[in-house]
């Protein structure tokens, strides 16, 4: 910022000086010229600076653009990983909300054909360990089957059930249980 101001000041000064000298006198032209020369001499430096600035800003812009793209990709990836789908108690059927989320995930998988994923099936703490392991298996497979129906190759999707063993929220109430009845997506 200070640099910019300094150069702006310098340029203004030079231009004002040049105008002054040009208009008022002819005699000290050499000096003038020298002054101009000085100015001219100074100019390229300024121009270089400007060019560098432009270059820099261009680089910055492209970096920013790249960053934005990367950020977008990362955001998409993050959304893919962070957005769980949720289930009703004792159910492995996909809700309409879950289907919408899965459509977005399918889109991401289409855009990232090299990615393969693991779908984790989880349950809330209620019910037996064994039944919940089976239910988690069904939840993960329900999500997988939906993605496969949308055209994603089954070979890219692995499933694992954690039953009630890895709750997201350790609470013992419906709010916690609702969070824990989920399929979670992991990129391998």
């Amino acid at each position, binding site marked *: 910022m200070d640099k910019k101001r300094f150069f702006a000041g310098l340029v203004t000064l030079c231009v004002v000086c040049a105008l002054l000298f040009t208009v008022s006198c002819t005699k000290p032209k050499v000096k003038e010229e020298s002054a101009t020369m000085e100015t001219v001499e100074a100019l390229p430096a300024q121009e270089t600076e400007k060019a560098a600035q432009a270059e820099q800003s261009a680089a910055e812009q492209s970096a920013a653009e790249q960053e934005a793209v990367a950020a977008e990709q990362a955001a998409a990836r993050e959304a893919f990983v962070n957005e769980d789908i949720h289930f009703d108690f004792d159910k492995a059927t996909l809700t309409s909300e879950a289907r919408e989320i899965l459509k977005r995930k399918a889109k991401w998988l289409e855009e990232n054909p090299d990615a393969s994923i693991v779908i984790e099936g989880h349950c809330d703490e*209620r*019910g*037996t360990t*064994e*039944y919940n392991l089976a*239910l988690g*298996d069904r939840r993960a497979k329900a999500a997988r089957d939906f993605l496969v129906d949308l055209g994603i190759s089954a070979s890219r999707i692995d499933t*694992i059930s954690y*039953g009630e063993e890895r709750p997201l929220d350790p609470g013992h109430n419906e709010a916690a249980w609702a969070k824990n009845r989920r399929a979670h997506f992991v990129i391998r």
Partner: protein
Amino acid sequence: MRAVTKYMFAAVFLLMPVSACFAQYDYIKISNPFLHKIPIAVPMFKPLSESQVARETADRYAVVMSDALEFTRYFTLIDRDAFIDRPRQTGITLHDINFKNWRDIGAEYLVTGGVSVVKGVVEMEFRLFDVFKGQMLAGKRYRGQMKDRRRIVLRFCGEIMEKITGNRGCFQSKIAFVSSGDGNKEIYICDFDGHNPVRITKNKSINLSPAWSSDGRALAWTSYKLGRPDLYIMNLLDRRVTRFSMKGVNISPAWVPGKFMLAATLSFEGDQEIYLITGSGKVVRRLTWSWGIDVSPSFSPDGKRMAFVSNRSGTPQIYLMYLDTGRTERLTFDGRYNTNPSWNPVDDRIAYCAMENGVFNIKVIDVATRKTVSLTAGQGDNESPCWSPDGSLIVFSSTRDGGVPRIYVMSAVGTDAKRLLVLPGEQTSPRWSPAVAVAGR
């Protein structure tokens, strides 16, 4: 099992006067023995050798015996302060006993004991008396090392149980369970009464659903040791472990009575179905063929029928399968969530876990009449019931104390629930072994 028995009996000497007394004794009917407990007196044992360790053993192991008898829920132990006689002073044999003094304090049975410790060899002799008949019902002398003392006392407890109730009780059985005290769910085994808990798995993953083979020598469970839910089968004698892993879940093991074979839920074909697999890890055949979850097998004592959980009707319910024909019928119709069947090892009743109004409680259904009884109510969530090998007790997990799941034992009719053992963390999925189990070392 036989080897263990033989080993123990090698150290047992039958006392002479015992033999004549058994024949005419009537067993007590045990339809509901827990409401009318049998009053028994177990005075402090008598030191028979002059040493500090004999005196200490005499004191300590009299308490071990009364605790073990009380644990069965059959007996009420008469307060030692009420005793008129002190057999430690007056003597422990038939001729030394003044039965009137025991009748007067309400005892129906009396156990006396004597202990000698000479050069590290422990000899313990016990006598069981019928106070009303003034007879000795059993008398035995055992010899062993210091470390065998508890085992010797429990062995005579089995004699007492057999003479009075007709079954030897569960004094040589063990209980396997899951505990999270070390930060991860690991498998543990403890004695029938919660003593001597030993950790079996040490893999810091998730270990679940322990299941005993019917000879008490093998334990199966589910573990995420290698990242996925696989089945592990351990030979408890040599600690050798076999892994069974197929695509999908490998969970919910239950051994077939009398065979080195187990049922488990696998999902390698997509659906979660129950299969028979050998103890060495080969699939024998598929048992269930319905769409949906089939899980939690439990066999009838004769191995001919299997109870299991299926959600084929939309909600988890208990079903019954006749293994010879595959015929299947639904057993539970009340409620929308019935799981965890455990078949009583001696009769045709199945304990299970039912959710009503969001709370889990333990119920028992009679297979013949389909009559259902609730055993727990109003005390947190109560899950994972499993019968003792003699069918007289039920071990289960409950959140009744502060919302943390812990293991409790109650009588078969739901009375006398007491916490089994105190360990840090949560304890779940208790599974009672057959009458004699190999120790977890």
